[in-house]
């Protein structure tokens, strides 16, 4: 019986302005996805957006459902051939992009438009799975503004865009404080609630637990951030900035790998040296190890020491992780070591690198003790004029021999691999340590930035009674690597990452500033975790707040905010017109005497009727109504007359 509800979204048709807003929002939120998606899918989605525009402009009928279904099926098949999966994360996100176009193609009413808006939200959040930088946050804010203006346009189609934009701005202004409260106080939980999907672990640049010739050189060409460290004291000098990562003890002739843990984990006992306190903000690298300056002295709560003395987190680092560390620089190592570890550190595969073995034998014969062998080796690297290059020539079967005696050019993995091989051949337990060397102190905020280009590999040699000693053959051969970093150590190589080139000084300054901002962003926005939340609460005197305290505080704060918002909306906006107010008061007084003004009755008619109803007050009624008519409908309004009217009404006593 009843007509369709004109405010129901399913009854309101999309206008050109609505569609333009939706397409703009989709373009903003879909762009980052489109850049990652297969090119044909990005083009198809774009074509769908355009097609919808043409349909609207030319008033064509919307395409039939079977046609859209065909497109969806073909595109899904295309995605399957591309990724060999449909229900995994990346293909799912790509399909979400496509469906945004398909949904737009069948969008006729505001109900469909609402579905497109929700799709936009999902496109926004899935983008954060890839990156959560400041840029992504800006994109999100812009998209939200566009979406809000568009939605306001849905409900007020006849209103100007400008007015709708103003309404949207007010909505956002009122929504942001609530959002801020929720962001700060909503109880956060650490870690995933359910398992992550299989493909959550993407390929990320970073150190591996194996090392082959050329692998570190490849890594060193990346500008990507590895971690940042904030020191509570001064930043240690470059030669102390050895960041210990995975230790590789197994060698198969070509590849170094960690090998199985032979003994239980244990905490180190360090003596001497200088203590360094700092915190590390480690980028997610989906591997378990954490990095710490040599020699790490304490372990963060979420990590353990490996038998080889590097830190292993309990679970792989899937999100940016902040941990406080303490290290001791130039500490005396423990002189004793487990026999099984030492045996492994001596193992060499047979049939590799005969020249290197011969050299090691010669050193062994000529040396009085183990320490002398080490110093001969260091001397050898210092004098042999091996070239340090990011583009090492490929090596064949006897990789150490070829590096030391024929190609004579390599990167740190060649140097460390060769040294460890030589030491083991000479009968000294030795192992490869990978990690980072150096880091770039930001003069703006004093934070040390370590990039993948700082990746490094060095060696440790075990000397009886003295323990494991660090020997860095790269530093011996190329002393500038230690103090001046990679940039000044690799001669004029085009393979150097852009930002490490010394000519671009101004670019580096800009980058320092930017990185200082990014670091704060990482710490306070992205790294806002339960721990930070407790810290935040302690500023307000609430120490050791748990989730119940947070929830209660949040509830209270939200109630206060909602009440404030409600009070604002209760405000009457306009100041009542004094003339009208006086007139209404006059009418109320007459109403109390039984003379009610009919809604349609003008002041003159009403006054005439009132004079009949209350004849004794006739003159007062006439004066008031005449003055009211003059003031209300006349051209100018003298303040004295307004005061007079108010006085007359105040003194009016209908008999």
């Amino acid at each position, binding site marked *: *019986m009843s007509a369709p509800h004109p*405010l129901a979204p399913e009854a309101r048709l999309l206008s050109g302005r609505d569609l333009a807003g939706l397409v703009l929002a989709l373009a903003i939120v879909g762009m980052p996805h489109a850049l990652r998606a297969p090119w044909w899918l990005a083009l198809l989605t774009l074509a769908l957006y355009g097609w919808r525009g043409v349909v609207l402009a030319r008033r064509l009928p919307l395409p039939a459902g079977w046609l859209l279904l065909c497109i969806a099926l073909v595109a899904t098949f295309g995605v399957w051939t591309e990724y060999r999966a449909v229900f995994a994360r990346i293909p799912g996100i790509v399909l979400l992009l496509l469906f945004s176009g398909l949904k737009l193609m069948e969008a006729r009413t505001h109900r469909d438009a609402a579905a497109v808006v929700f799709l936009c939200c999902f496109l926004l959040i899935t983008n954060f799975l890839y990156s959560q930088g400041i840029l992504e946050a800006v994109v999100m804010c812009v998209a939200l503004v566009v979406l809000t203006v568009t939605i306001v346009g849905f409900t007020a189609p006849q*209103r100007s865009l400008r007015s709708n934009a103003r309404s949207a701005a007010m909505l956002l202004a009122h929504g942001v404080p609530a959002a801020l409260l*929720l962001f700060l106080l909503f109880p956060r939980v650490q*870690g995933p609630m359910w398992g992550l999907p299989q493909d959550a672990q993407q390929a990320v640049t970073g150190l591996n637990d194996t090392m082959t010739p050329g692998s570190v050189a490849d890594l060193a060409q990346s500008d990507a951030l590895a971690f940042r460290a904030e020191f509570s004291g001064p930043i240690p000098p470059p030669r102390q900035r050895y960041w210990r990562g995975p230790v590789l003890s197994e060698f198969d002739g070509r590849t170094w790998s960690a090998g199985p843990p032979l003994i239980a984990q244990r905490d180190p006992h360090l003596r001497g040296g200088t203590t360094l306190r700092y915190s590390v903000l480690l980028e997610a690298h989906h591997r378990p190890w954490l990095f710490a300056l040599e020699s790490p002295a304490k372990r963060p709560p979420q990590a353990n020491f490996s038998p080889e003395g590097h830190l292993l987190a309990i679970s792989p680092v899937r999100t940016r992780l902040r941990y406080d560390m303490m290290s001791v620089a130039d500490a005396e190592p423990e002189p004793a070591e487990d026999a099984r570890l030492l045996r492994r550190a001596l193992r060499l595969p047979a049939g590799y690198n005969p020249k290197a073995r011969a050299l090691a034998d010669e050193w062994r014969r000529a040396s009085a003790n183990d320490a002398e062998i080490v110093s001969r080796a260091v001397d050898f690297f210092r004098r042999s004029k091996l070239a340090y290059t990011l583009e090492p020539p490929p090596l064949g079967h006897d990789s150490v021999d070829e590096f030391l005696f024929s190609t004579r050019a390599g990167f740190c993995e060649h140097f460390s691999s060769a040294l460890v091989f030589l030491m083991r051949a000479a009968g000294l337990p030795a192992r490869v340590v990978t990690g980072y060397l150096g880091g770039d102190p930001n003069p703006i905020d004093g934070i040390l930035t370590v990039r993948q280009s700082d990746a490094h590999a060095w060696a440790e040699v075990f000397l009886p009674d003295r323990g494991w000693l660090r020997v860095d053959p790269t530093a011996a051969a190329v002393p500038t690597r230690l103090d001046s970093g990679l940039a000044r150590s690799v001669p004029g190589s085009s393979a150097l990452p852009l930002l490490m080139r010394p000519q671009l000084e101004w670019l580096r300054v800009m980058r320092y500033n930017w990185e200082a901002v990014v670091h704060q962003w990482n710490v306070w926005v992205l790294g806002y975790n339960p721990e930070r939340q407790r810290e935040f609460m302690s500023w307000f005197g609430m120490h050791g707040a748990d989730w119940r305290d947070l929830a209660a505080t949040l509830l209270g704060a939200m109630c206060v905010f909602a009440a404030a918002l409600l009070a604002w909306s209760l405000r009457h906006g306009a100041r009542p017109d004094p003339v009208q107010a006086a007139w209404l008061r006059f009418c109320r007084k007459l109403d109390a005497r039984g003379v009610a003004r009919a809604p349609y009755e003008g002041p003159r008619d009403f006054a005439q009727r009132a004079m009949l109803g209350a004849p004794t007050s006739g003159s007062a009624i006439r004066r008031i109504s005449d003055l009211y008519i003059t003031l209300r409908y006349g051209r100018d309004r003298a303040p004295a007359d307004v005061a007079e009217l108010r006085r007359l009404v105040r003194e009016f006593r209908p008999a």
Partner: protein
Amino acid sequence: MLRALRKDPRWVNWFYGFTPPERGTIQLRHRRVYIVPSRVGWMFGGTVAILLLGSINYALALGFALTFLLAGLGLAGMVHTARNLALLAVKATRVEPVFAGEAAQFRLLLENPSQFDRPSILARHVASGAQVVVDVGAESAAEAVLAIPAARRGRLALGRVMLETRFPLDLFRAWSYVEPDAHCIVYPRPVISALPAAGTHAGGGKSRAYNAGSDDFAGLRTYHASDSPRHIAWKTVARTGNLLTKQFSEDAAAEVWLDWEHANPALDVEQRLSLLAGWVLAAEQGGVRYGLRIPGTEIEPDRGDAQRAECLQALALYEAR
């Protein structure tokens, strides 16, 4: 028991916050404005919940930011939707009478005392489903005209009207009921028929056919407010600027009584009233002076729009004893 409660006017009036019908200007206090999430609003809530779960599971800081921004927007949207309706002033203005079977044009004046405009306010007549969407500008008023079918003669009360809005985000639906004291006089549905035979004319020896008279132009006289616009000499008005009414020769002479007793007694009350209404129209059309005599009411012969309205209203409000 709940059903009994729903029928009890005391409880109903308390629940809706007013006692119908309301006279004068009705201000929609907050107490009278209800708000619930719309279907889109529920979908929005579901979306926010999914985004929140995703943000927690993947530890997405910006996901939290997005989720909470949307939640904050939803909260602000709720307040803004209620604000779009609250403190609006509603009053019913005069309603022109209609014949039964036509639509009564009820006019609601929506006055906005605030400095912000209130777009997309739906006024919907609950009983008939008649509806219209209006925008009310800042510190101004808008008229919502509800065309409500008038089926039966008599006094048609406007009844309950729902005012609803979903501005600005479509997520919430705020509504309020008003029941202004507005009535429309509904004349009986006229049955077009010839006037009763001349012999039944009372009070005069003249027996000219009523319909011959209007052709006999007799002259002009000054316009009275009660004259039918049809008889204004528009050509003369255009020429001289003076409002003059054309007079016809039988004006003073032809007089007819439209009498309840003249209608066929076999007809029932409503049919008789319809017949009389048809006579009133015919008599006015014919330009004769006519009076109306129905049980309980007698209207002296006269002519013109005022006479017509008076007669038709008497017929509309006739109550059988």
